[in-house]
């Protein structure tokens, strides 16, 4: 809600969103991924999580970050991962943050939300929980998030409800398989006293490997937009569908790319990125372990300063809808190989589709995420693995680079 006494002396056109484009002294909220470790291996994981990184911030370093957020008056952090609750110090950090006036909303697949934990969470006003579920049925959900993950999430929601936790979030990443299930998601949320939160599938992390086959089809974008308009404020979106506003009426929210302006990401090793969907060196602003810590990165990094400059709109500038969609999502463009000053890959006018169709078959030249912490074993990565088939056995085994025999690889004919 915007509260502004109508002041005739005030310049016209100073909408709040215009002021936000120049950035704030501190983020409104930020995403903080505490660990790359995860018990699941979701096909679309935006941070390619799985295994813990040995360089992850220690408990003391995390507390120092919280002290800094308190000093900057960051109202709350969205904690994620990986699965943040698998960190042994997770509950300690949660208590530390809320005791220091930094509210916490954390995303979880529900694995650690036992009845006891649920009681504890329900008793803390400064904590909100977001349960991830990407299908309203086990079939649709588990195909993306892995076997058993539907049951885990439902159990967690039951525990939260039974503990009296009100208005926690049921968080859904929209795919072409679950767009027809929106009403069913709403029913699940209502059943457990939760609020539905829908977000956009981004081609980030492992999401890049499955985006082509999972992202909503063009006609489903319209279906989703209509559903969102019909449900208004009762469904949260984290402002992630502002590119759909070009269909007509703007969706609730700021309708602006907040990257580096009002939001950012701190990753498990302390790297600060412009947004949670842009884990790539191109969007790396600095590290909280550097002198000056997070505040200095937020206020002084060249990257963030650039993002706060007025954007030109590039190829989109002449489009009549540019003022509503603002060219869409930077990360979605980047990881699908589209120019950053051009249309969003899911541009409702279809301009993105045209560009996507021109991508090379092997996706050569399209940026890859800078880090991959995926589990090395199961489940198999859902992308083609190039292999060379030979019709005959090689004449001799290949020679290892560590072979010590001076005659190794010598061919006598």
């Amino acid at each position: 809600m915007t509260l502004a006494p109508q002041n005739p002396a005030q310049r016209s056109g100073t909408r709040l969103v215009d002021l936000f484009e120049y950035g704030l002294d501190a983020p409104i909220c930020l995403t903080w991924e505490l660990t790359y470790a995860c018990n699941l291996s979701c096909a679309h994981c935006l941070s390619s999580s799985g295994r813990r990184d040995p360089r992850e911030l220690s408990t003391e370093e995390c507390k120092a970050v919280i002290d800094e957020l308190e000093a900057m008056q960051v109202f709350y952090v969205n904690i994620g991962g990986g699965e943040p609750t698998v960190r042994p110090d997770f509950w300690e950090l949660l208590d530390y943050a809320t005791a220091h006036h930094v509210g916490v909303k954390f995303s979880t697949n529900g694995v650690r939300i036992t009845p006891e934990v649920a009681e504890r969470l329900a008793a803390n006003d400064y904590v909100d929980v977001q349960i991830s579920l990407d299908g309203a049925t086990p079939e649709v959900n588990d195909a993306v998030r892995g076997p058993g993950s539907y049951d885990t999430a439902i159990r967690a929601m039951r525990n939260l409800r039974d503990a009296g936790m009100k208005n926690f979030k049921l968080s859904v990443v929209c795919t072409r398989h679950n767009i027809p299930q929106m009403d069913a998601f709403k029913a699940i949320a209502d059943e457990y006293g939760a609020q539905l939160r829908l977000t956009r599938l981004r081609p980030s992390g492992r999401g890049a490997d499955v985006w082509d086959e999972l992202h909503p089809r063009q006609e489903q974008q319209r279906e989703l937009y209509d559903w969102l308009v019909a449900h208004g404020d009762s469904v949260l979106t984290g402002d992630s569908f502002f590119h759909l506003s070009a269909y007509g009426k703007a969706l609730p929210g700021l309708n602006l790319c907040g990257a580096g302006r009002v939001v950012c990401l701190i990753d498990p090793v302390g790297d600060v990125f412009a947004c949670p969907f842009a884990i790539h060196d191109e969007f790396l602003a600095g590290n909280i372990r550097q002198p000056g810590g997070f505040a200095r990165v937020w206020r002084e990094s060249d990257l963030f300063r650039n993002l706060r400059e007025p954007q030109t709109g590039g190829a989109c500038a002449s489009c009549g809808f540019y003022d509503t969609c603002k060219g869409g999502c930077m990360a979605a463009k980047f990881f699908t190989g589209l120019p950053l000053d051009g249309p969003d890959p899911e541009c409702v006018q279809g301009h993105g589709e045209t560009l996507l169709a021109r991508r090379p078959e092997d996706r050569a030249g399209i940026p890859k995420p800078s880090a991959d912490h995926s589990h090395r074993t199961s489940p198999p990565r859902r992308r083609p693995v190039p292999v060379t088939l030979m019709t005959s056995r090689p004449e001799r085994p290949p020679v290892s680079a560590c072979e010590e025999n001076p005659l190794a690889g010598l061919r006598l004919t």
Partner: protein
Amino acid sequence: MTRPVPDLDLDRAWDLHPQVSVRPEPFGALLYHFGTRKLSFLKDRRLLEVVRSLGEAPTAREACSRAGVPAADLPRFGAALGALAGSSMLVERTP
């Protein structure tokens, strides 16, 4: 988005809700309510001054006057404060 809300009674004593945090910004301020998890924006520095002095002033009218709000602007400020009270950012207190 502003909703039609009744004006707040300027002759009573008001205060920020204890769960509300105020963060000044170049354009005004951000208000966050930890209980309702709602964010509000003050797009006017004088309104921020008023909000900050509510707790010390015997009435909201007095808080406005201390912040230098001219009498002609009182209805607008009353409406803005009313909207804040409507979203539980402000609560009435006994002076």
